[in-house]
């Protein structure tokens, strides 16, 4: 449709408007002149009541208030529109004098920074209040400069006009403060010669969209004549031709084979590639049961613990584990797990005896895979021992090949490095042979001055250790300033080193009672901080699940950060937190996606043993990642059971994240097509349908997916309702054997019922005893309840 573009070079000018509607406004500001008068009066006042009366009498007209934002008076703190509260929805609607193409909006400010400035807002526009389009999502800087933003004023390169502009404040610079807008100026074109043609085009555009919706509705409801008539008259295309073809073949003609061919072609042509790349990973957890060596009385694998450390050598596929807290005391044992051998080896029962570190927990370790060395720094001392034990921050290195420990420093603080910290983070840069450590809380003696207000916890900054020269350098001090290179230290955060782009990624954490959800990167070569998300905007970059004991790993090749949520630090939320959540951050796209979330269904279905499927949520555990083989390993931790606070875990899990492939997608599409075909057949020719199920449909079923398998078998069971000829007995029997072998035991109950049902009927029809079915036994029901097979019922009666 040809559109009028408007004359080129139409000038943009200030557009006149008035305040039309608002969600609320705060009417308690006193303009400066009034303020002065009141000041003189109250200084002589001795009574609060008198003061109140005076204030009440100080009237100001609504008109005055309404004009506030039309005038730019930065020195008058009252010259603004302000919401009564910051409880949503808050908005301000401006009505333009004439319809205009609104090209930009300018916000004026107060002469000083002010907490009520809009950190985040949206602007909508439209010809009427009911139909408004999103024109802008942005935020203002908290300063005293005017800011201008371009508003969306084109659709498909064609300008459209607005009569109303709605400003929706979302966040102010202080979360508990109200919203204020000091001054608004709109710029655009309101020349009728330009606006009128745009208005006409816009009306036509909206009409076209309405017609497409009608076409869709008609087709969905099979009003073929109406559909064709409308399409012919308006000549508007509904969709991509391939989709029309598919609709024709599948819905209209029921040509399933042609449909399958079409889908296969689409998959091979790569039409589904984008869809696949955006598919979520499916997590596959597996508990690792290592081989145990013949005992000499001692354990052959690490005991239960929390606050331990693990690192992984991806070259040799070895996981190293050191220290921790077993619920009663610190540990000093050092283990290695070989993935290939599936076996733990104890390298040392007590590293202190071998010139290594003393027993400790909440330390941090990192591994230099190239040089085959492991470093450990920091540890936790609870308040009872803080005055008696040394608070020196010892720093050790373990050499794998020579199996020796070396004390690199008795006290890193004395060497210009960090003081003794716990719950910090440490990363290895093998390429430049550097170690980075950030955050953690500094351990101090319990002072004699017990003024808790005076002794705020101190957090450690960002340090770099040059392994070659063995020197420390402070890169960033803990800073509460909001400068571009300032970073706030914290505990319980995640820090990962991306070996390819050579940046540290830091997010989350806690600072006293505040949970931080900012996310920044630090380029180690250019010494530059880049704030990815300041934690306030609810956009796709915002860190999820803050306040949880997250564990994160990085894949530099795929440019992904993987985060396991852990347990909520909010004890009240724990009841809901029966499953872990797993999130992936795409570094390039700057977006978080959830692989899976807490599943409420799990809570309702306690019979389903989750313990077999995935590790229970916990904290103080360890998660490491083998980026070569794309596997995660998790060990131990604290399940947070308030009834047994000393309990720790010693379970060992692997996690693989699987994304569907092209082949999987094709198979799944075929399954859906064939399943529908089977259902149609079942209504007309049940025997043929059964054959179809057992052959064609069966091959497309994903046997590792319990949902799909169960579905097929239920259908199978229903099908068996009709009297069958004897020769099918063999096929059914084979089916039973096959399915039994490959399924999760919970599903067997369903299988057995379905097939029992069939056999029972068969038996009946061929004259044998009705008890045949029962002899097969019912081993499969995971919940221990007995199966009822009732031949009179049309569908299997599954007791569960």
């Amino acid at each position, binding site marked *: 449709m040809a559109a009028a573009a408007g004359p080129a070079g139409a000038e943009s000018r200030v557009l006149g408007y008035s305040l039309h509607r608002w969600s609320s406004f705060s009417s308690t500001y006193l303009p400066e002149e009034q303020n002065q008068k009141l000041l003189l009066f109250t200084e002589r006042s001795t009574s609060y009541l008198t003061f109140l009366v005076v204030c009440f009498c100080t009237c100001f007209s609504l008109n005055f208030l309404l004009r506030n934002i039309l005038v730019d008076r930065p020195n008058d703190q009252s010259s603004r529109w302000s919401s009564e509260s910051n409880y949503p929805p808050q908005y301000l609607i401006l009505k333009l004098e004439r319809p205009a193409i609104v090209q930009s909006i300018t916000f004026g400010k107060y002469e000083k920074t002010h907490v009520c400035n809009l950190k985040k807002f949206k602007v909508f526009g439209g010809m009427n209040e009911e139909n408004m389009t999103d024109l802008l999502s942005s935020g203002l800087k908290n300063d005293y400069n005017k800011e201008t933003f371009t508003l969306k004023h084109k659709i498909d390169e064609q300008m459209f006009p607005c009569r109303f502009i709605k400003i929706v404040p979302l966040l102010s610079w202080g979360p508990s403060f109200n919203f204020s807008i000091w001054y608004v100026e709109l710029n655009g074109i309101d020349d009728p010669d330009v606006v009128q043609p745009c208005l006409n085009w816009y009306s036509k555009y909206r009409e076209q969209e309405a017609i497409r919706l009608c076409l869709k509705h008609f087709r969905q409801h099979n009003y073929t004549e109406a559909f064709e008539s409308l399409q012919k008259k308006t000549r508007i295309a509904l969709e991509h031709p391939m989709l029309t073809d598919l609709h024709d073949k599948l819905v209209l003609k029921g040509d399933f084979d042609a449909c399958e061919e079409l889908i296969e072609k689409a998959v091979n042509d790569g039409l589904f590639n984008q869809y696949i790349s955006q598919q979520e990973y499916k997590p596959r957890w597996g508990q690792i049961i290592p081989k145990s060596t013949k005992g000499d009385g001692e354990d052959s694998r690490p005991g239960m613990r929390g*606050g331990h450390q693990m690192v992984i050598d991806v070259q040799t596929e070895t996981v190293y584990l050191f220290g921790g807290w077993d619920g009663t005391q610190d540990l000093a044992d050092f283990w290695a797990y070989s993935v290939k051998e599936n076996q733990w080896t104890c390298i040392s029962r007590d590293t202190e005896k071998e010139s290594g570190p003393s027993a400790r*927990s909440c330390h941090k370790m990192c591994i230099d895979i190239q040089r085959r060395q492991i470093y450990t720094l920091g540890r936790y001392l609870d308040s009872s021992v803080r005055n008696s034990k040394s608070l020196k921050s010892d720093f050790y290195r373990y050499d794998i090949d020579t199996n020796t420990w070396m004390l690199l420093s008795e006290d890193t603080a004395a060497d210009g490095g960090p003081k003794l910290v716990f719950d910090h983070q440490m990363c290895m840069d093998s390429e430049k042979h550097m170690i980075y450590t950030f955050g953690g809380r500094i351990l101090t003696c319990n002072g004699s001055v017990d003024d808790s207000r*005076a002794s705020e916890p101190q957090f450690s900054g960002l340090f770099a250790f040059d392994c070659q020269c063995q020197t420390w350098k402070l890169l960033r001090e803990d800073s509460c300033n909001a400068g571009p290179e300032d970073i706030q230290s914290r505990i319980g955060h995640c820090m990962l080193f991306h070996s390819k782009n050579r940046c540290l990624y830091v997010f989350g954490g806690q600072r006293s*009672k505040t949970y931080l959800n900012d996310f920044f990167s630090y380029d180690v070569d250019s010494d530059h901080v880049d704030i990815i998300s300041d934690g306030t905007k609810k956009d796709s970059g915002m860190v999820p699940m803050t306040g949880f004991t997250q564990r994160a790993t990085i894949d530099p090749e795929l440019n992904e950060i993987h985060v396991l949520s852990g347990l909520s630090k909010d004890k009240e939320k724990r009841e809901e937190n029966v499953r872990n959540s797993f999130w992936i951050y795409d570094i390039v796209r700057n977006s978080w996606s959830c692989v899976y979330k807490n599943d409420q269904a799990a809570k309702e279905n306690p019979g389903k043993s989750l313990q077999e499927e995935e590790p229970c949520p916990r*904290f103080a555990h360890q998660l490491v990642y083998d980026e070569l083989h794309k596997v995660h390993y998790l060990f131990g931790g604290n399940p947070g059971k308030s009834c047994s606070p000393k309990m720790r875990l010693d379970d060992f899990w692997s996690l693989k994240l699987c994304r569907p492939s092209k082949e999987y997608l094709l198979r799944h599409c075929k399954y859906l097509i064939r399943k529908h075909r089977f259902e149609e057949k079942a209504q007309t020719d049940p025997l043929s349908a059964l054959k179809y199920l057992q052959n064609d449909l069966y091959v497309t079923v994903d046997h590792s997916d319990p949902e799909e398998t169960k579905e097929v078998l239920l259908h199978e069971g229903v099908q068996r309702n009709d009297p069958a000829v004897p020769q099918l007995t063999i096929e059914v029997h084979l089916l039973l054997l096959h399915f039994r072998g490959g399924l999760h035991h919970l599903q067997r109950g369903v299988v057995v019922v379905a097939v029992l049902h069939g056999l029972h009927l068969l038996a009946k029809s061929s004259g044998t005893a009705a008890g045949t079915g029962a002899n097969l036994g019912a081993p499969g029901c995971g919940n221990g309840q007995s199966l009822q097979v009732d031949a009179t019922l049309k569908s299997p009666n599954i007791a569960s």
Partner: protein
Amino acid sequence: MSSSGCTFAERRVSVLCCRFCRQVLSWRGMQAVLLADTDTDLYSTDIPPSGTVDFIGSCYFTEICRCKLKNIACLKCGNVVGYHVICPCKPCLLSCNNGHLWMFHSQAVLGINRLDPSGVNVLLWGNLPDLEESTEDTSCTSEEEYIR
């Protein structure tokens, strides 16, 4: 910190109102002078005003002493009305002071005298009931709960 003689019982209790929007900020204000700069007069209060002000910006230090400060603003109009002493410095702590850690600039608030229950006399600090001390800050323990 503020001080003007070592007893404060004779001082009048003021209602502190935001000068810009008349919102009551505190019912327990005391007119005082700044310890580190006795030319500056201001109002102070002992208990954190809740629901009326909130912190803005980040901590800072002034040249006059080493007390760590953070500004507070009126929740209604968003204008800065004073500051809170996050961490007092030793010299200030050791000098005679009224123990108040919440300060309001005199150009940002209005202080109105409060009357005592008789309704006739001005209420004095000596007659103001002490409020219970808020519970000990448990931030230390909560940080250490989830590490091992």
